[in-house]
Structure formats: structure tokens, C-alpha cells
């Protein structure tokens, strides 16, 4: 980029230098003597003016509007360079206008939430670098309509919720406001979707992926241009062959012969059987090297000396003496096990193009602290000191000395009792004959539990309170236990789909689900606005309240529909019963209560939502009353 521009200029009748800093963020004027430097951030420049070419004096007027200053400040610089005032002025002016234009374009991305949506024209111009900045910028995500639409295409229920809510929103909320509200709670979903879309497939081994298909008795093969590119980049030899031969052969011929040739098999790594057809054009290259420039990559790597085994070659006889490695590991013999070698080298090449995940290219060459730590011998050092944070748990009992807790019902009852009486009563109980054995014999437990085997339940009904162990009480106990077992069992077995719908048809149920989703959405926004305490958004709040009322109406509408449906079902059933009676004379017992569904069920299902809606409007009215506004 252009180097820092300098020009000599006058500011407020003082001489000095006007310059743009090299990072192009600041425009500054430094006086020749004295220290009143003027620094203007390029971002704050609202407007520029320069005297036209024909004027004698060359002046630059900068309108600066910084974020916290109430008004814009004007700076006037007069270029007084003897040699090239006009040229310098033009240079500075051009640079500044380019910078300003760039800033204005970027500004289009970032807007406040209250403003209307500006479609992203610069989304087209944005490159890879700004994409990642966009992901973390909540406001940018909210304004990216393309992203939202692709997300909705992918996620059908979300799309339905969106269209439904949009259809039913009150007209006072504008479309853009609705959009921003809807997406402001879903920014994390948008972000995940953006990241997902941005992922690309990495490079792969093309030669093994390409296979001929047999169609109509002849071999067909489809290769895309992308695959051809990949082949060329992975196998420079093929590129060389192509470059040398293609003007003579045509493309389709070239590729069809290539895939049948021995060269192809060698590159894939398969062994070349003698039965393979030879092809004069390609066989010339059978021994050609498939490397870009051999060992170029190795030289680029910087291996720390502590693990560099090649250095060992200089010390001893190296691997030449000693045990011979396995025949797959022997260097230099490529004919025996070509697949190992070619796969390895191919993988290396592919991996070299993939962005390294564990190496930061900005790291200094040589070992950094992390690798040193991983290579260091930790066992020889002592054990680390424990680094704990002490929590100061204070005793809280002294806080409650003065508390008078609320008195529960039991405590009130207990307070009425006299302790000595209570004790004596208990003592009496324990000395009763039932529990106090006499003469070394224990209690007669049979009598103590009070179960009278042959008693009739009639006798026991005479007593107001059945005695412990009476048949009636035992029966009640059994009943309670069995009820508990039954309700647990229903939970364990799970309810089947029919009963969970409770007689509502599938269509009505889906409508109900959708209404519920949209109502929850609106409620969410209402509470966000209401509790934020931000007076600027009070207007939006009033509109939200309208929306909530509409939601209430929508629920009633669904209830009405369910009711009509239910009546329809009842009518049909009644008709059927009547027909049956007329035909066969049999009377079927059937009551309308057996038919589920209808308004009652809908209201029961939506009861919590209805309650929340009522609570929300109540809170709002209360807050209005506090402010002194009359609600009609």
C-alpha cells in the first residue's frame, strides 16, 4: 500500500507537516515547533473539502465527527509547500477519499438494532477474510437474508414457525423489525449454519476415486473438471504428459487411454501385471519421477535437532551397517511393494496442502516453549506444588440469632400443647399392656396389631374412627397403594400416540403446536423488552402487547375449530347408531362423552400458555398504572 504520505501545511497559522500514518488509521498534523499535534481518526472524518484546482491557495477542510463530541469540528489545513503543494494535496485527498469509501462500505454491515434492515450489497464483495468476522458479529448475522433463507430451507419446522408468525403479526410491527426480533434470539443457530456452509471438502486421492462404469456394453467414465485439477496438482507427471501430448491427441482420447495404461496403474500404486496392455505414448513416462522438485519439502521442514535422526548417520555407520530393515521399509526398491510407497507419498502431498492444524506459521523457527516442555524429562523433576484456591466459608449461625421465622401450621398446633402433658401421655402409651410384656413374656403381637380376622365390616362401621387394623382401613390402604402402582405403570409404559392427542385430529394438533410455537416466540420477546428497562424500546413494547392479544385470539380460534370437529364426529356417530337401530333393532349404548377432543381439550393443553399470556398483560398494565397512564 502507499507509504505514509506527508505534506507540509499550515494549521491555524502555524507551520507543520500533515501526514497519514502507515496503518492508514490516523491523519495527523505535527507542528514544526511547539507540541500542539492534531490527530484525527480516519474513521471519524465525516466530510472533506478541498479548494478547486483553479484556486491560488490550496486548502483542505476536514469535518471530524467523533462519537462523543456533540458537534462536528472543522480543521483547515493550508498547503504551503513551495514545490508541489497541489500535487501533495491531491495525493492526500485521493488517499483519504479511498479510505473513507472503504469505511463507509464496511459501515453498511454494522447497524444498530433499532434501525431498519439494509440489504447487504457488500456481502457480494466480502472475501474469505471478512467471512469469519461476520460469523462473530451478531448484527451481521441478523441482516444476512441469504443465510437465513438457506437455514429455513434446511430446517422445515423453523420455516413453518417463521411464516406462521409473520402471517399473524400485527401490522404495526414492520417487516424488518419482525425479522430482527425473530433472528435476534436465534443468532447462535445462524452462526452454526454459516460455519457449516463454509466448510469445504478437503482434497482426496482422485485416482482411486475414479472408476469406470459399464453402460450399454461399453465403459464410461465421468470426470469433473475439479477432479482433473486435483489430478494435475497431485501428480505433476500427468500434467507433464498432458502438456506434451494433448495438441496431438484430443482430450477424450488422452483420458481414455490414460486410464487404461500402465502409467495409471503405477501412479495408483498397483502392481503392473505383465498382462496389461502397453501404450506407446504413456509407457515412456513409466519411470518418470512424480515429484515436483525432489526433497524440496524436506528442506523446508525444520526438524529440531534433538529428534533429528538423520544426524545419526554422521555419527555411526548409519543404517547401512547393522540389521537390514524389512523389505517394505527398504529405501530405493520401488518395484516390489509400490503401493505402500505411492500411498505414503500421495498422502504426504495431500497433507501438505491442508492447512496445518497444529503448527502456527507465525511461530518462531526453532523450538518454542511447548515443544521444549513436551521433550523435557518431567519424571526427574519433583512433584508440583498444589495450587488451590481457598474458599472462606463463614459460619452462618450468627446471622439467624435475631430472625423470627414464620410459624408453620404444625408449630402453631404444637405451641398449644403443654410439654409435660405431652410427655406423660407418651409415657402412658408406652406402658400400655399392648406394648409392655408382663412376666417375662413378650407382647402378644397378634392382639396388638388389632386385625380381627372374622369381623364383619358392618360392625366396624359403627365406630366413627375405625380402629387401627380394621378391615376398612386395610382396604383403603391397599386401594391407595394400587392407585399409586397404576399411575406409575402408565408412566413407565408410556402413553400411545392416540391418547397423547386426546382425541384431537392430527391436523388440529399440528395447528395447535404451531400456535404454541409462535406464542412462545412473542412472549419471549415481550419479556426481553419488558425486563430490559430500556425506555427507548417502550414503543416496541406496546406493539408486543398487541401481538400477545392476537395470540390469545388465535388459541381461541383453534379451540373453536376443534369443537366443530368434535361435534361433527358426534353427529356421524349418532347417525351410525340410529342407522344400526333401524336396521337391526339393536340399541347401542353410546354417549357423547366418549368422544375426546374439542374445545375443552384444547384449553386444557394450552392452559399454561394462556396463564402466561394473562400474566404478561397483567404485568404490563400494572407497570402502566405505576407510570400514571390510564388504561381504558
Amino acid at each position, binding site marked *: 500500500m502507499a507509504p505514509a504520505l506527508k505534506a507540509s501545511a499550515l494549521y491555524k497559522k502555524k507551520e507543520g507537516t500533515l501526514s497519514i500514518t502507515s496503518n492508514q488509521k490516523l491523519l495527523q498534523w505535527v507542528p514544526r515547533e511547539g507540541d500542539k499535534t492534531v490527530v484525527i481518526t480516519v474513521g471519524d472524518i465525516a466530510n472533506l473539502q478541498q479548494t478547486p484546482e483553479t484556486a491560488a491557495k490550496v486548502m483542505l477542510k476536514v469535518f471530524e465527527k467523533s462519537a462523543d463530541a456533540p458537534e462536528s469540528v472543522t480543521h483547515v489545513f493550508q498547503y504551503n509547500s513551495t514545490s508541489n503543494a497541489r500535487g501533495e494535496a491531491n495525493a492526500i485527498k485521493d488517499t483519504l477519499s479511498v479510505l473513507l469509501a472503504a469505511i463507509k462500505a464496511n459501515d453498511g454491515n454494522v447497524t444498530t438494532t433499532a434501525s431498519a434492515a439494509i440489504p447487504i450489497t457488500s456481502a457480494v464483495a466480502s472475501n474469505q477474510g471478512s467471512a469469519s468476522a461476520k460469523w462473530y458479529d451478531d448484527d451481521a448475522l441478523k441482516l444476512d437474508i441469504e443465510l437465513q433463507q438457506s437455514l429455513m430451507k434446511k430446517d422445515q419446522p423453523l420455516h413453518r414457525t417463521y411464516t406462521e408468525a409473520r402471517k399473524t403479526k400485527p401490522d404495526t410491527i414492520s417487516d424488518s423489525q419482525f425479522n430482527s426480533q425473530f433472528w435476534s434470539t436465534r443468532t447462535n443457530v445462524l452462526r452454526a449454519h454459516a460455519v457449516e456452509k463454509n466448510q469445504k471438502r478437503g482434497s482426496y486421492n482422485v485416482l482411486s476415486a475414479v472408476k469406470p462404469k459399464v453402460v450399454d456394453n461399453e465403459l464410461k467414465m465421468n470426470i469433473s473438471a475439479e477432479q482433473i485439477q486435483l489430478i494435475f496438482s497431485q501428480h505433476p507427471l500427468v500434467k507433464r504428459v498432458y502438456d506434451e501430448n494433448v495438441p496431438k491427441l484430443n482430450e477424450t482420447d488422452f483420458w481414455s487411454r490414460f486410464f487404461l495404461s500402465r502409467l495409471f496403474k503405477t501412479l495408483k500404486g498397483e502392481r503392473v501385471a505383465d498382462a496389461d496392455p502397453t501404450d506407446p505414448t504413456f509407457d515412456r513416462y513409466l519411470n518418470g519421477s512424480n515429484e515436483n522438485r525432489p526433497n524440496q519439502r524436506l528442506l523446508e521442514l525444520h526438524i529440531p535437532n534433538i529428534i533429528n535422526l538423520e544426524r545419526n548417520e554422521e555419527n555411526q555407520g548409519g543404517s547401512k551397517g547393522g540389521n537390514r530393515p524389512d523389505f517394505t521399509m527398504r529405501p530405493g526398491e520401488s518395484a516390489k511393494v509400490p503401493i505402500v510407497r505411492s500411498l505414503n507419498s500421495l498422502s504426504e502431498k495431500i497433507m501438505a496442502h491442508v492447512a496445518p492444524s497444529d503448527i502456527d506459521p507465525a511461530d518462531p523457527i526453532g523450538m518454542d516453549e511447548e515443544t521444549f516442555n513436551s521433550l523435557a524429562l518431567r519424571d526427574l523433576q519433583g512433584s508440583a506444588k498444589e495450587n488451590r484456591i481457598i*474458599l*472462606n*466459608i*463463614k459460619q*452462618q449461625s450468627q446471622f*439467624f440469632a435475631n*430472625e423470627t*421465622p414464620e410459624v*408453620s401450621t*404444625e*408449630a402453631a*398446633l*404444637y405451641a398449644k*400443647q403443654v*410439654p*409435660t402433658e*405431652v*410427655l406423660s401421655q*407418651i409415657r402412658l*402409651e*408406652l406402658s400400655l399392656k*399392648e*406394648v*409392655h*410384656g408382663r412376666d*417375662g*413374656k*413378650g*407382647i402378644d*403381637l397378634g392382639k*396388638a*396389631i388389632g386385625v380381627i380376622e372374622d369381623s364383619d365390616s358392618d360392625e366396624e362401621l359403627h365406630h366413627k*374412627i375405625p*380402629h*387401627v*387394623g*380394621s378391615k376398612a382401613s*386395610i382396604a*383403603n*390402604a391397599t386401594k*391407595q397403594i394400587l*392407585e*399409586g*402402582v397404576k*399411575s*406409575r405403570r402408565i*408412566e413407565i409404559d408410556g402413553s400411545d400416540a392416540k391418547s397423547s392427542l386426546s382425541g384431537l385430529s392430527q391436523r388440529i394438533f399440528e395447528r395447535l403446536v404451531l400456535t404454541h410455537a409462535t406464542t412462545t416466540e412473542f412472549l419471549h420477546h415481550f419479556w426481553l423488552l419488558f*425486563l430490559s*428497562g*430500556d*425506555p*427507548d424500546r*417502550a*414503543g416496541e*413494547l*406496546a406493539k408486543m402487547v398487541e401481538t400477545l392479544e392476537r395470540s390469545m385470539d388465535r388459541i381461541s380460534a383453534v379451540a373453536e375449530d376443534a369443537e366443530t370437529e368434535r361435534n361433527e364426529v358426534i353427529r356421524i356417530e349418532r347417525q351410525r347408531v340410529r342407522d344400526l337401530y333401524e336396521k337391526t333393532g339393536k340399541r347401542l349404548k353410546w354417549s357423547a362423552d366418549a368422544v375426546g377432543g374439542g374445545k375443552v381439550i384444547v384449553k386444557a393443553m394450552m392452559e399454561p400458555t394462556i396463564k402466561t399470556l394473562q400474566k404478561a398483560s397483567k404485568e*404490563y398494565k400494572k*407497570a*402502566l398504572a405505576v407510570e400514571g*397512564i390510564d388504561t381504558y
Partner: protein
Amino acid sequence: MDRVDGTEHYKGDVSQGPIPALLLIILDTNPHAWALLNRDLPLSEAIANLLVFINAHLAFHNANQVAVVASHCHRAVWLYPRPGSSSEGVDMAGGETPAINDANKYRPFAQIEDQLLTSLRDLIQTTTPDDVASTNTTQMAGALTLALAHINKATLAFSQQIGGTETTADHLGSSDDTSGLQSRILVLSVSGDLAHQYIPIMNTTFAAQRMRVPIDILKLAGDTVFLQQASDTTRGIYLQLRSPQGFLQYLMMAFLPDQTSRKLLVAPTQEVVDFRAACFCHRKVVDVGFVCSICLSIFCSVPEGAVCLTCSTHLSLGEYGSKPAVVPRKKKKRRKLNGGDDTPSRPGTPVPNK
């Protein structure tokens, strides 16, 4: 070789058959509450029914064990086994003849009955009216702690008895329950007002959860606070009796099966659990409150100076509690430099139609 000569049969491997169980009963003996209950279920009858239940439990397996703790108004006391009685015994020369010498009563049953009643009577004798007047509630946390310690001891003793050198640290945390003693706790609760013991009770609940000891609750009277959570977390049974006269039936039908049988049965526990907690500052039961992000202590209102009471960190509140603003701020009218219109509501000057 073992299979041929039948050595397996003689090894006495207890884990082949049904596993013995330890039933630990916590009897809430709050005198106030029992006095109120006297009309429906007098204490004497309750104790008698409880003894029948204990006998039934012991009858299931000859290695089953039982223990009873009384949770009294000011302390928790062992009722059975009587503390100190194990040290006495044969050594006492000419010691007391066992109080119950009935030939018609199965000796272990008689022994338990005797010790239980004697301990209970001693407990009541030593209670003064001041003790009774001093508190409304019972020492549930203390009783639960005693229970868990006893379970731990019994489990260790049992595994040493059968296994010899096995370490029981694995048993307590292991997922397979097929070896070792199966323990459970049954709480007969008649009092409420346990909010002051919230923290200790939750601690014992989590310890029981770790040890896989279900805590069953049988509620005769009193509000339910926290005991529901205890039984829910430890997968025990919670029952609130509708007809206290059928006390024995409840015990026998719902609480008698041990853990292995419960896997095959549907438990009649109450499904709606009250998950509220008590605030740490006032011990009030709250459902919406403030939580310290460091130590997770719960407060019903903002503590003084916004300093957490347990860990003493300074906490900030954020935007919570700001007054909801329903009136838009009145905009100041500004004169713009360019003379642009900022009062769009004012109609423009009428232009004659062209």
C-alpha cells in the same frame, strides 16, 4: 474338579442365593406430633405394627439385618441394636436374665422387641419437658447420618465375612449390586419444619445416592419439605398415608420388598416431587431466588453488600430488577444544521394542485 465332587455346594457362597438385606428404620419420635396423632394412630399401636413388619423382614432371609434409630426432638438415639449391649453379654457374671423368656416366641424376634421397647422407654424417661418445649421439629439429619454410618460399617463387616480380602471401596461405587449387603433406609416421619436442616439433609441424600441406598419415606403427618427430594434422588418410595389405620398394610405392601425385588416391581411412589430448596440466609423455602455463581449457595434476596455469605466473593447483579419502562423517553427537539425536518407530524405547507 469342583463340579465333580460338588465342592461348590459346600462353599457356602452367599452370593449364589438371594442377597441379604439390611433394613434401617428411622423412627421419628417427636412427642408433639405423636400426641396430635393419638386419635388416629396411637404410638403403642404403631410400635406394635412396626414390630410385626420387622419380624416379616427378618423372616425373608436368615441373614437379613435390621436396625432402628429414633430421631427425637433434641437428639438421635439408637434403639436397636442397643448401644453398649454388644459389649455386655456373656462376660457379665450372673447378668440379667433376658427379660423375655417365652418359649413360644422366636428368640431373635423376642430380643429385638425387648431391646427396642426398653430403649424407647429409656429415651422418653430421660426427656425433660424443656427438651420438648424447645423445638418443633426432629433431628432428622442426625438420624440419617447415624444410619449411613451404620450401613457403611455393616457392609464392611459383611464383605469381610464372606470375601475376606475384598476391598469394599469398589462395592460402594460399583454398578453391579449382586454382591455385598443390600441396605435401605425407611423413615417414618411425623414432623415437618425441616427447613433449618436443609443443607445437612441434602448432604446425606447425596451420600446415600452415592452408596446406592434408597431412602423410603412414610409420611404420617407434617409437611413434606425436602424428604420428597431425598426419596426421589435415591430412587426410594415416598408415600403419604391417607388412612393411618391401615399402617401395617402400607408397610407390608409397599416397603417390604428389597432392592432386588424392586427391580421387578412397580413402586407406588408419589410422582409429583416438590423440588424447591431452602435459601441459605433465612431457611425459607423458595422456588425463585439468587444463586452465587462460585459456590452455588441459594439466597432468597440479594445479600447485603452483594457479598456471598459462604464464599465471600463480591457478586454483581447485571440488569435484573430494572423498572420496566413502558413510556418512551421524550425526545428533545433539536435544530439540525441542514434544516432537515425532524417533526414529520407537522403537515407540510399545502401546495395547490397542479
